[in-house]
């Protein structure tokens, strides 16, 4: 009952925050596709949390920069962003007409994504939170056993590769009401640097072509999750200051603290 009250308060408070829409996820027992430290399946308990319905959009990031110009590309310290940071934007604070305002913001570093989430009184999801949310489809909380669904995600992922992401929320919501967890963009997660897809990959950004070309499969006990493996492999090649045209983010909030 107490948890329900929290959910309600959270939903109300999120509705009050300009534009940011979060939904509550119940959490519970979850077996990650990512292998544990000894290579075995990991059964985890995910605490209830709330997640942003869609990735942060260009329009939302513009509003953030207007309030926090420290994170604009002409001011951000060198250690927190690479040369690719928001490089396709028309100006430091405006994306310009060529980029759809309702598309997910990309070309942002992990540092800037963190700062954005903090501005919404939220934080980046952990890998497990993200994976748990993305395990759902439109009917089931855990649809990962469905080969047709897995194949569809993989096809959508491959099709979107190399194209600029379109607007958010063009897909049907999953059972929690979340959009765009597959096929639109890769997403930063808070602990991406500590996922260790290979036992020796303990330096973020030190991943190599082996990791990108399938070495990360070694860290998966469920090798049917190819799209998920690609996601981990790509994240493992990044440094936190990196940014790419296909990498966005969304935020989560803790419930009940």
């Amino acid at each position, binding site marked *: 009952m107490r948890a329900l009250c929290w959910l309600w308060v959270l939903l109300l408070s999120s509705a009050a925050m300009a534009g940011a829409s979060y939904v509550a996820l119940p959490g519970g027992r979850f077996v990650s596709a990512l292998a544990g430290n000894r290579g075995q399946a990991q059964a985890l*308990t995910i605490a209830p949390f709330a997640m942003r319905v869609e990735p942060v959009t260009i329009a939302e990031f513009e509003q953030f920069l207007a309030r926090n110009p*420290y994170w604009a590309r002409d001011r951000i310290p060198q*250690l927190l962003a690479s040369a690719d940071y928001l490089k396709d934007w028309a100006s430091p604070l405006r994306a310009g007409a060529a980029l759809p305002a309702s598309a997910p913001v990309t070309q942002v570093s992990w540092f800037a994504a*963190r700062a954005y989430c*903090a501005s919404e009184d939220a934080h980046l999801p*952990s890998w497990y939170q993200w994976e748990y949310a993305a395990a759902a489809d439109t009917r089931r909380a855990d649809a990962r056993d469905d080969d047709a669904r897995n194949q569809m995600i993989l096809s959508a992922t491959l099709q979107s590769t190399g194209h600029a992401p379109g607007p958010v929320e063009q897909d049907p919501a999953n059972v929690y009401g979340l959009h765009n967890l597959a096929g639109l963009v890769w997403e930063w997660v*808070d602990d991406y640097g*500590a996922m260790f897809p290979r036992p020796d990959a303990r330096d*973020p950004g030190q991943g190599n072509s082996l990791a990108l070309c399938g070495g990360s499969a070694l860290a998966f006990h469920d090798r049917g999750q190819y799209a998920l493996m690609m996601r981990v492999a790509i994240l493992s090649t990044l440094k936190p*200051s990196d940014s790419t045209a296909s990498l966005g983010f969304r935020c989560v909030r803790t419930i009940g603290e």
Partner: protein
Amino acid sequence: MYKYLLALCALCLSLPLVVSGAPLPPDSVYRLPPLMLVDQQGQSFALDSLAGQPRLIGMFYGSCHMVCPLEIDTVKKIQQQIVRAGGKPIPVLLVSFDSRHDQLSDLRQLAREHHITAPLFQLTRVTQGDVGLLGGVLGISWRALPDGGFVHNAVLTLLDDQGRILARQDAQNPPQAEFIQAILAQQNSAR
């Protein structure tokens, strides 16, 4: 009043950080958004107030029984080797990435157990700001485990007086010759 304070804050943020008159370089760790720390003696300070002399910086968590004591041991061995080579002990800052559990009393106890004294060797927790940003620039990552521990790496980084990253070494390894040389070179150039 609130409006004026906001305006003042905005003005402060827009001014470049300076050390003894010169602005900090663009790749300085001290240019991160403000991070407030407290050390084992209860001394509060801002991270960027440490600019002005070379320093070793690393991260840890208090209830760590394996890697973190090793990290402290490596720091002590580094100090011994520097002194043996004619240098002087270098100031060290270790920042906890587990501020939730590492309270001041824990830092105090850890300092006592390992015979660590501030200000030369500061064990600290973050009281304000995002410790994750510091971890990111230092190449230190962690992931909480269900038992309260963390999967993490341990890196010691040498910063110059302006906060630029000069050298790193894995804190689980014995002192590396190149790392010691980099520290000595900094101390010599400061003379």
